[in-house]
């Protein structure tokens, strides 16, 4: 599968997982022999509920330590330094019980920026997320779409190399979804590598450069988006696409 994307890459894959396994109560939740995300992205991890998409994302981000196997970033096993260059946006935004600006400042303070720099950065970020004028509002009074935009801004405030998103729009209406997708694509264009989980095929078509289809904890197919949608190789992909198209 790595060869498939090799024409787009240079040197080490940005992030790769080998031999990942997570089992619970005798069953296998995740079983990934090898997965290398080496294209420019965005990578969309697609699959039905319970396929292990979120679990894989958490392993790649180091939130969960797998029973065995290793995640490498730039060829080196994931460590604190590498993790500090990653960020993640969750399905349900977890906002601190503080103002909108303070949620961003929480991250910026950890980067040891001066007060003035932080203020300027917050203003820029809020502007980019369409949240200007809401800086002093309690973050938890934002609407669902605004809250998720703030969560994305907070993730981007870390200036991550890789941004993981776990179904960021699954609870949002189409217009809120559109704004989020636009934000993510802008971040991608600026050089942040996007790895996004979704079960929404339309979103995968709109966002994905390459698609990872997961089924029962395994990678069923990893292909460039155009190949995946036009000529899916695996039985699982054909069935998933067909089933979803019927819906």
């Amino acid at each position, binding site marked *: 599968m790595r060869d498939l994307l090799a024409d787009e890459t240079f040197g080490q894959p940005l992030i790769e997982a080998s031999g990942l396994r997570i089992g619970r109560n005798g069953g296998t939740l995740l079983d990934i022999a090898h997965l290398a995300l080496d294209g420019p992205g965005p990578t969309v991890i697609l699959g039905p509920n319970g396929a292990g998409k979120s679990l894989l994302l958490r392993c790649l981000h180091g939130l969960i330590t797998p029973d065995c196997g290793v995640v490498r970033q730039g060829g080196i096993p994931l460590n604190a330094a590498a*993790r500090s260059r990653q960020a993640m946006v969750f399905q349900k935004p977890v*906002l601190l019980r503080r103002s909108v600006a303070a949620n961003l400042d929480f991250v910026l303070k950890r980067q040891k920026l001066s007060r003035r720099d932080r203020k300027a950065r917050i203003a820029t970020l809020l502007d980019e997320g369409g949240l200007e004028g809401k800086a002093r509002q309690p973050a938890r009074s934002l609407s669902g779409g605004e809250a998720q935009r703030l969560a994305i801004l907070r993730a981007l405030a870390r200036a991550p190399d890789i941004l993981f998103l776990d179904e960021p729009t699954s609870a949002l209406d189409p217009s809120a979804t559109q704004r989020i997708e636009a934000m993510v694509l802008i971040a991608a264009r600026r050089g942040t590598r996007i790895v996004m989980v979704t079960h929404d095929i339309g979103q995968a078509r709109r966002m994905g450069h390459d698609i990872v289809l997961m089924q029962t904890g395994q990678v069923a197919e990893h292909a460039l988006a155009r190949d995946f949608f036009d000529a899916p190789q695996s039985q699982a992909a054909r069935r998933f696409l067909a089933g979803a198209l019927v819906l």
Partner: protein
Amino acid sequence: MLLILSGDSELWAIVLLSLKVSLLAVVVAAAIGMPLGAALAVGRFPGRRLVVVLLNALMGLPPVVVGLLVYLMLSRSGPLGVLQLLYTPTAMIIAQVVLVTPIIAALTRQTVETLDAEYAEQLRSLGVSRLASVPTLVWDGRVALLTALLAGFGRAIAEVGAVIMVGGNINHVTRVMTTTIALETSKGNLALALALGAILIGIAVSVTGLVSLLAVREGQGEMRHA
């Protein structure tokens, strides 16, 4: 009512002593209970669940029994008898600390643990270690923690059984609102008892009102994404 309005000095001395004893007790109990509660919330060690259950159970300590135990500790022949603390305000503070610490610790544990369940992954994602996440959890739980403190204060100021046993209800020394109300009622001096009762209610109600006010101001929109 006349007693309150006339600024009867004896009455106000009693009120002040009550406030002083209970406030100090809450400060000491918070200094012990909040770190304990926070540690229990984020720490993982064998027997943790047992400690949590025990702590919750201690919230219901009967004041009279606490009074008895503190009395035994402090009495002339008790292990701490040499300190000669029995029948002093300090003894009353100790008894109230024993009563209030489990309340503050248990409520702190609950608040921090609930918040931790929500924040843990996000904070970890942002590179915040377990230990470093405690100040964040405490700060974001500030309203609930303040409520815990005030619940402790409410318990302390309204409590009568323990303070009467270790304080002795000595006029001008250890006589507080609750013990005076009990004494004056039994003596038939209902005017003073009622006046103190009114003040006690006033304190309790304004404390609770203050908490609600704070919670409403801080928690705007809290419900929408709770």
